[in-house]
């Protein structure tokens, strides 16, 4: 797509999202805030799946670890500063990803998928079956973090609108950050690894280190999403780390089109919208939604981001005849 057109479309989308609170409906504000944080989650996974070629099936672990650190820190130290808690949560997720990645990245293909899943299940059981995080019931957040810098309080996370725009800002920030990273020499190496890792090695790249860095970075960014989730909803449960969530975020990435940040965002929005819509009309919503996703993936290889190109080609094909 023409870069100007795509920039204008993105701007329109951001403005449209920013206007959601004008509806005055708390339900929509919260729903779109959730979509925004899921978009961060999906982008973080796309860094691995779509750009590095690492299909992680345990990405919910990093989301959950950050979410739980919010709850656990607040439970132990009372209300915390956002400016301490957010970096701490990101760091813990990134660290967990560093350790898990150190082992997982030695495997390839289906084994990598299984090992990332197994580690995520271990994390799940830590929160589900031990008393650290309140067991299967999860935990409520005693207080949302404070944003005070000295005596200045720039915004208030207990305020629904402030929370919404904070999530929007974080989504844009993560998008811009990843965009930048992907254009860097580091990002180019990741794409090279996805395309042909063996060739990267014979060109003299120690691909293990690059993959581990990507894995850890993705974990940290997934942590941003988990942090926002905990703060938005005010509670955390072990289900955040379950393999269902790892599968869902993978579906978002596939739905949007792997290897496209905009695709990951769109995938997250569409997925969450469908989840709401189908849960509304039938209690068998998971079945229905599953079928829709299967159909979408079958009939739209390349995902949502591939649609403009397909339309264009269809039109050109038609004109040529």
């Amino acid at each position: 797509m023409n870069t100007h057109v795509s920039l204008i479309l993105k701007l329109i989308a951001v403005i449209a999202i920013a206007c959601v609170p004008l509806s005055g409906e708390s339900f929509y504000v919260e729903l779109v805030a959730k979509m925004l944080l899921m978009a961060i989650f999906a982008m973080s996974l796309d860094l691995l799946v779509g750009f590095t070629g690492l299909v992680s099936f345990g990405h919910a672990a990093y989301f959950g670890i950050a979410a739980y650190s919010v709850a656990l820190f607040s439970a132990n130290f009372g209300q915390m500063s956002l400016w301490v808690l957010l970096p701490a949560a990101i760091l813990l997720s990134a660290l967990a990803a560093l350790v898990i990645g150190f082992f997982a990245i030695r495997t390839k293909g289906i084994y990598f998928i299984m090992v990332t899943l197994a580690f995520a299940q271990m994390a799940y059981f830590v929160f589900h079956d031990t008393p650290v995080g309140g067991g299967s019931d999860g935990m409520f957040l005693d207080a949302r973090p404070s944003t005070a810098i000295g005596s200045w309080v720039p915004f208030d996370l207990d305020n629904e609108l402030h929370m919404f725009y904070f999530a929007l800002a974080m989504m844009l920030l993560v998008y811009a950050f990843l965009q930048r990273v992907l254009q860097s020499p580091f990002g180019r190496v990741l794409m090279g690894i996805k395309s042909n890792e063996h060739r990267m090695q014979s060109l003299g790249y120690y691909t293990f280190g690059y993959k581990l860095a990507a894995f850890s970075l993705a974990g940290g960014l997934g942590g941003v999403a988990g942090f926002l989730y905990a703060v938005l909803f005010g509670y955390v449960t072990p289900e955040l780390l379950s393999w269902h969530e790892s599968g869902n975020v993978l579906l978002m990435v596939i739905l949007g089109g792997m290897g496209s940040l905009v695709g990951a965002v769109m995938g997250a929005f569409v997925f969450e919208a469908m989840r709401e819509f189908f849960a509304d009309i039938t209690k068998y919503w998971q079945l229905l939604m599953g079928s829709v996703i299967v159909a979408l993936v079958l009939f739209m290889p390349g995902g949502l981001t591939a649609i403009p190109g397909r339309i264009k080609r269809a039109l050109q094909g038609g004109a040529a005849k």
Partner: protein
Amino acid sequence: MNATTRAPEVLLEARKLTRRFGGLVANQDIDVTLERGMIHVLLGPNGAGKSTCINMLSGDLPPSEGEIRYLGQDITRLTAAQRSQVGIGRSYQRTNIFPQFTVLENVRLAAQSRRQQPWRIFSKAMEAKWALEKAHACIEEAGLGKRTDWVSGVLSHGEQRQLEIAMVLATDAQVLLLDEPLAGMGSEESANMVQVLKRLRQTRGILLVEHDMDAVFAVADRITVMVNGQLLECGPPAQIKASVAVQQAYLGTEDSLHV
């Protein structure tokens, strides 16, 4: 050749390289010496073990036995990436590129491998002038200038071979291990590549696997002939041409020395 040069500098030296695949001995006690300023051609019929030999030298395959030295250092246990970093570059018989990337990006990545700064995640890859300039120069040199912005996967087979050469050039390798680089090239590209090889020889060492006998005898300073994983004969081109053993080995196959 030039008889008045100083003692040649040995770049790469392999001793008694052996590689088994199950019961098959693909290479047995192969010795190869590569000197700077020299093109050493590895000849042999299909399945002789030439690619296996290159794979062991480049680190793509661990040898079952034997030793490899680069500038006197034992590199037998180094990985492919480490060997690339010390100065051993290679091209592949079966084209091995980044098919979704442009020609420029393929070669730029190769250039970037010499100055990796993975922590600089906020700098733009396309703003690293040195890597771009290097990539453009190597693409020109390999005769692919007209294809710089093409997606490499759609190039012809011969052009993809040229791209492989451009990539190995961009890594500044001192030792070039080239596995049938001329295969699929048109006569013009092939002639250009022979010129490129001759020019590269002045400052580097080249191990060349090639079936095109005209090209082989146009560039070879030394030829090693392999048959069935065994080293048959090694010597200057004139000796190989005259060798009865080599003639016999080739007569039994579809290949033949057109001399």
